[in-house]
């Protein structure tokens, strides 16, 4: 016997309700709130949380450093501004300086803005091909990625990092971007890819202050 159309409609409505996705990360947030309520530790997540906190701190420091640069470009005589200019791009090349050295977790507050060579990449060849993204653009992209990662939205985080790579062709915050990508891949379950990227990062940036964090993602 064919079910009544109203009964079929009702069944479809209930199915739609049962099928509704719980907001991503909501159970984790509820658990964290409940644990805070009773002052309970989260031992099984401690390592992961510490890693996330560290990444967030790194990006925050980077953003703070970048903001200082943007707010005080003339005073610091850095030769960069909120928007990239030809003057900035005509800065002499300084190939001996690593690309990103300014933000480190060991330096939570920077009394003075870092000098220009520390933050400026080898921009001259890129400038010939196309105008580089401004520091504020790069910082914005990483802030989006970091925020998405904190909210548990790995897809959005990876999309923001893709934009950083492909659209902005970001260089100034390259190391932080790579570390965020490693974290996002790991959290998205792509542990092999995360490990491979981490391994490459360690090999190519042996002197980076971020290398220890990257190494923690390399699968033994």
């Amino acid at each position: 016997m064919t079910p009544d159309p109203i009964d079929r409609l009702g069944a479809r409505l209930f199915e739609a309700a049962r099928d509704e996705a719980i907001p991503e990360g909501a159970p984790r947030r509820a658990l964290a709130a409940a644990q805070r309520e009773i002052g309970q530790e989260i031992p099984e997540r401690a390592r992961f949380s510490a890693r996330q906190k560290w990444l967030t701190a790194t990006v925050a420091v980077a953003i703070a450093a970048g903001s200082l640069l943007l707010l005080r470009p003339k005073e610091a005589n850095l030769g960069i501004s909120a928007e990239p200019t030809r003057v900035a791009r005509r800065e002499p090349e300084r190939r001996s300086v690593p690309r990103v050295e300014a933000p480190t977790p060991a330096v939570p507050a920077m009394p003075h803005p870092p000098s220009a060579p520390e933050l400026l990449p080898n921009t001259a060849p890129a400038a010939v091909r196309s105008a580089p993204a401004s520091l504020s653009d790069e910082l914005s992209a990483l802030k989006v990625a970091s925020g998405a990662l904190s909210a548990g939205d790995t897809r959005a985080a990876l999309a923001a990092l893709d934009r950083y790579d492909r659209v902005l062709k970001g260089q100034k915050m390259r190391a932080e971007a790579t570390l965020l990508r490693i974290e996002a891949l790991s959290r998205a379950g792509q542990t092999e890819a995360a490990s491979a990227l981490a391994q490459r990062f360690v090999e190519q940036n042996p002197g980076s202050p971020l290398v220890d964090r990257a190494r923690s993602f390399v699968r033994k």
Partner: protein
Amino acid sequence: MPDIARPRDDVIGIPSKVLRPGISQAATRGLSIDSLVAQHYGFIWRVLRGLGLSPTDAEDATQQVFMIAARKLDEIDPDRARSFVYGAALRVANNARRGLRRRREVLGDAASDETEPESRGPEKMAELVRARQLLARVLDQMPEQHRRMIVLAEIEQLAVPEIAVLEGVPVGTAASRLRVAREKFRSLLTALRDQNPFGEEL
């Protein structure tokens, strides 16, 4: 779907004995806030959705439920944990809806924050959102008691004895309420059938 295991395996007891002050059964029988959240988050969130909260409000309210549960953890009988969180959810929902009514009075009807994962495709997403909106419109017109019956029986697919325990009524009463609730639901849905989001499929 990032869901939590539904609480089908819970052993249901008598609601009046859910709380046993002074007896730390949770500690002795291994009830933890982690396991409570893992087993019952999905159930509580869907119940709160069924009671008319938006996805975001349901998340906030569910969080409150588990914060209450965390504070009372030592007093909860592990065998009746679902009854405890269900009771807490009903109280939190009442408070949340009072707040919502005040918000609507000030701001008017806010746009729904209902969303669907993009992977489903735009047509399917729109269809599901409309289906849930129609369901909410029907449930909004039902008395609270009947609404809960529909949510527990039709959305959570609980058996009548399980519903009876959660509602704290005899099985016969639960069965009778459910029958009336289904009749009411059918009648209201018939009146709104022109809003069927599934088109010719039905």
